[in-house]
């Protein structure tokens, strides 16, 4: 890496031919690296012959294509579209460029979220129009619901990790508590969804406080380990407490949500009949979409409000410097507990939604990978940033789904190529790229909660990530 950056830096200063030469060299070097990587990973493929024997299939063409692609991409980056290339082309505009960074711009928060909300509101209509029918759009609306669920979970965890700076690896536990609360309350006590929703939220928040107590003194790695264990404990309890949770088999036929009392069926007193519509199972799906949209919006609004209240400022101050907080008379114990409880509350609400959507819950849905994905969304989005979480959730949840649609890749990589098999590989690659390109997440600046004259974003160099 050092070699690369040195040569590019030199390229920026010198004249055009020199720059080209150094860019060529650089690109050549990158190609060599690619070749080195390709030889063990791509060039030879093991296949089974008809007799079941393993044979090696050489894929020289593919290797060459990949190396060429890297060569031209690197060359292009250095000469045409990279930062240094642009700076070298317009040496005068450099100062201005720096200035525009420093001047305040409209915050992502003020434009981004309303735009996203507008898009989300119109989304079911859009996909219906594009796919030429409500039923045909089912896949897309389901995907929207999935993404929004993760947006909500990301926002909830963001309170704990992004604002208060407490690393929580067991967030899925609260999701599970919310889901099982609704599942158990509705199947055994026949309580309606709308009543269960707040109960599930409160139960999850209570567990958030209960988890908070033992981990208050812990920091960093220890906090991460204990929260991780908490997530696992909840899952194991769900598996083993058979009389209540029905163990690994899970709880099935959970009652569906009604439209404020109107069930989604083709009865005379159903939703469709009441509004004079023709019955369609899609009504329920669209309703679920708007339900999770409303829940996610609630999460966002409450978090935004809380950030501007003393408690939110105390969370961020806690992330910045806990000792200074205590010297200012802030009770860090209750501050941490409120962060855990608020985060857990939204996790619980999302969990209830999950249960009512699936109609079935089992411990499998709440494993560690789930926690990891939610945490990855928060970290990828930029800790503390709500817009970042939305982008990251779309990328992380919808992205792998999109891989299913990349059938055209078969033309390049051969008939047996199944893009969705490479999900985790691409996932990992994306993470590595992010770590290099934006170590502090997509939206790494912090928006101040109050200002006298103008709102200026704070660069991530100054914002701390918390100690846990």
């Amino acid at each position, binding site marked *: 890496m050092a070699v690369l950056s040195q040569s590019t830096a030199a390229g920026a200063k010198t004249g055009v031919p020199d720059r080209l030469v150094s860019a060529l060299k650089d690109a050549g070097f990158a190609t060599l690296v690619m070749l080195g990587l390709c030889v063990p990973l791509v060039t030879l493929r093991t296949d089974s012959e008809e007799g079941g024997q393993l044979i090696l299939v050489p894929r020289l063409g593919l290797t060459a294509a990949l190396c060429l692609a890297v060569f031209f991409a690197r060359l292009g980056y250095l000469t045409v579209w990279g930062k240094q290339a642009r700076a070298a082309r317009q040496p005068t505009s450099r100062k201005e460029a720096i200035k525009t960074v420093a001047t305040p711009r409209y915050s992502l928060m003020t434009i981004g979220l309303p735009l996203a909300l507008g898009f989300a509101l119109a989304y079911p209509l859009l996909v219906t129009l594009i796919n030429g029918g409500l039923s045909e759009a089912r896949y897309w609306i389901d995907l929207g619901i999935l993404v929004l669920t993760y947006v909500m979970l990301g926002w909830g965890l963001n309170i704990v990790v992004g604002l208060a700076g407490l690393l929580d690896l067991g967030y899925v536990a609260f999701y599970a508590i919310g889901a099982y609360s609704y599942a158990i309350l509705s199947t055994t006590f026949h309580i309606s969804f709308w009543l269960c929703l707040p109960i599930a939220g409160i139960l999850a928040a209570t567990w958030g406080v209960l988890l908070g107590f033992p981990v208050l003194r812990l920091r960093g790695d220890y906090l991460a380990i204990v929260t991780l264990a908490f997530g696992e404990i909840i899952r194991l309890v769900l598996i083993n407490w058979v009389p209540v949770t029905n163990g690994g088999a899970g709880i099935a036929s959970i009652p569906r949500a009604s439209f404020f009392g109107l069930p989604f069926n083709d009865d005379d007193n159903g939703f469709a009949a009441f509004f004079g519509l023709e019955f369609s199972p899609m009504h329920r799906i669209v309703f679920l979409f708007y339900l999770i949209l409303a829940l996610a919006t609630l999460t966002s609004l*409450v978090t935004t*409000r*809380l950030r501007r*209240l*003393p*408690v939110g*400022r*105390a969370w*961020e*101050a806690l992330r*910045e*410097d806990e*000792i*200074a*907080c*205590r*010297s*200012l*008379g*802030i*009770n*860090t114990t209750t501050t941490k507990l*409120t962060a855990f409880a608020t985060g857990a509350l939204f996790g619980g609400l999302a969990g209830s939604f999950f249960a009512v959507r699936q109609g079935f819950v089992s411990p499998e849905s709440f494993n560690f990978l789930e926690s990891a994905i939610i945490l990855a969304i928060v970290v990828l989005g930029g800790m503390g940033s709500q817009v970042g979480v939305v982008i990251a959730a779309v990328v992380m949840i919808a992205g792998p789904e999109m891989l299913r649609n990349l059938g055209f890749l078969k033309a390049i990589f051969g008939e047996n190529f199944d893009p969705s098999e490479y999900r985790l590989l691409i996932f990992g690659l994306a993470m590595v790229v992010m770590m290099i390109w934006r170590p502090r997440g997509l939206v790494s600046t*912090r928006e*101040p*909660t*109050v*200002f*006298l*004259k*103008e*709102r*200026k974003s*704070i*660069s991530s*160099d*100054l*914002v*701390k990530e918390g100690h846990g």
Partner: protein
Amino acid sequence: MKGETLLRVEHLTMRFGGLVAVNDLSFTAKAGDITALIGPNGAGKTTVFNCITGFYKPSEGRVALAHGGEAAFAVIEEATAKGARSLKVEDGAIHLLERMPDYLVTQHARVARTFQNIRLFSGMTVLENLLVAQHNPLMLASGYSVLGILGLSSYTTRQKEAVELAKDWLERIGLTDRADDPAGDLPYGAQRRLEIARAMCTKPVLLCLDEPAAGLNPRESLELNTLLREIRDRDATSLLLIEHDMTVVMEISDHVVVLDYGVKIADGSPEQVKNDPKVIGAYLGVEDEEVAAVEAEVEGRA
């Protein structure tokens, strides 16, 4: 209340394993005074601060602070025997600081502090730093967040008042123009002043400053003297000050306590302390015969 005893430190001892950082230290600080705590490196000054502000639990000893005049010290034995943290008396109260957790020392006993290594919330703006300091009154006004979420106007008014107080302080430390900049972006001297202003926003009766002049240039150091005197005279906040810069100490303090290896070696007015050979010897770490020469030097500097 001015001239009455505000803080009483009695037989304070702090041990870290085998190391005795503070050894049977007793002194008092008067209301309306700037009391300086000086001593060579490692003398235990910061440790004393940490004991007073609740960050350390002293191994032995008592630290008592009186609100509303020294009459409150009358009930000190009663409070101690009862095992109480605070005991109210007629128009006042006594607080036994060594029994309080750190945040209560600020919240109830109204003792604020700064740190030897500046501890600002560097990723928050200057204004936000001053608002975090007003957490407790604002928290109450926001109905512990419940009313605040609903956006009640009573909270908005209270928050405006908090911003006004912050603005006053920004004016006084000359940082009004930088209110919306992150605290971590300020130059060193400004960060020191901001840390003092932030501590003052908690409206303390006693402000403990750990080496506020460290790293300041002479002009900034003079400004700091003015600020500290102003805090003493205008805000009726007494100061307890750790300082290495002898010019600052001699200039502004009303009373000096000298520590060496955790033991008090002198206690008196700046004049008395300055001329105490024991102090000069310990502070500058020189032999007796050299004291005279050093004395002359100190004389020249002060």
